[in-house]
């Protein structure tokens, strides 16, 4: 059973910014984030009747968005692998353009630094990446993140701690490259 148009529009107005920005932080590409936003609201429209109020609607929407982003990344990676085995000349363009960094929310002067940060964030494991993004970029509290990710608060604390350590280590390893570029 789908929602009627008016209710759906209300829901969209209330949560579209949240979904879009979360997808943008996850995928760092405007087109991809728009695609995810469309997919998320289609799923909401089709399965809102299944929503049991065990968690808040907002938490449920966060979960759908994160799952859609993870599926999207998996699909993209499998495509990449396929292209690597396929004809290179035709698909080179597609490989190189899979993840163009486009994040309109970032201040222009920080763009290069953020690009590097997101490159390293993208190398983190799924859970570490999700916990870090929700905590650092979205400013959610650990209990809120634990509800969204269905993990204990201590697990979330550990995920964020490990994510931060890995990021710091990988960034400092890049410092030499950065210094060479400057000279």
């Amino acid at each position: 059973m789908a929602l009627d148009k008016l209710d759906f529009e209300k829901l969209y107005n209330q949560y579209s910014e949240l979904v879009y920005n979360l997808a943008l932080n996850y995928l760092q590409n405007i087109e991809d984030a728009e695609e995810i936003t469309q997919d998320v609201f289609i799923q909401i429209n089709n399965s809102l009747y299944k929503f049991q109020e065990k968690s808040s609607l907002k938490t449920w929407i966060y979960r759908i968005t994160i799952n859609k982003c993870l599926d999207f990344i998996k699909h993209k990676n499998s495509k990449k692998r396929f292209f690597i085995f396929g004809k290179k000349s035709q698909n080179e363009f597609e490989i190189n353009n899979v993840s163009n960094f486009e994040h309109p929310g970032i201040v222009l002067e920080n763009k290069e630094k953020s690009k590097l940060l997101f490159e390293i964030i993208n190398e983190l494991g799924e859970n570490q990446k999700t916990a870090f993004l929700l905590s650092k970029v979205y400013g959610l509290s650990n209990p809120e993140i634990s509800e969204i990710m269905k993990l204990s608060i201590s697990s979330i604390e550990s995920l964020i701690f490990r994510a931060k350590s890995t990021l710091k280590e990988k960034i400092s390893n890049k410092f030499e490259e950065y210094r060479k570029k400057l000279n």
Partner: protein
Amino acid sequence: MKAKNWTNEIMESTNGMMKIPPNTLLFDKIQKRINLKTKVSNKWIFVAAATFALLISINIKLLKSSTTKSNTETVISTISNTNLLY
């Protein structure tokens, strides 16, 4: 020291990030996709129903033809029994 400062700068580079509203046309696109999906699903329901009906009618026809075939076979066998050369 420089490395540490640089690392911190990178780590803090997402500070002051702004929330961006999605494209104003996105809602219409979603509506279109929802409507399209309903149309497609109706079409597929019809195709599935038609296939199912066709399958059942073929089965019935086959069953009927096999019973008539067995009847003819018994008739043939009785004829051939009575037409023995000796």
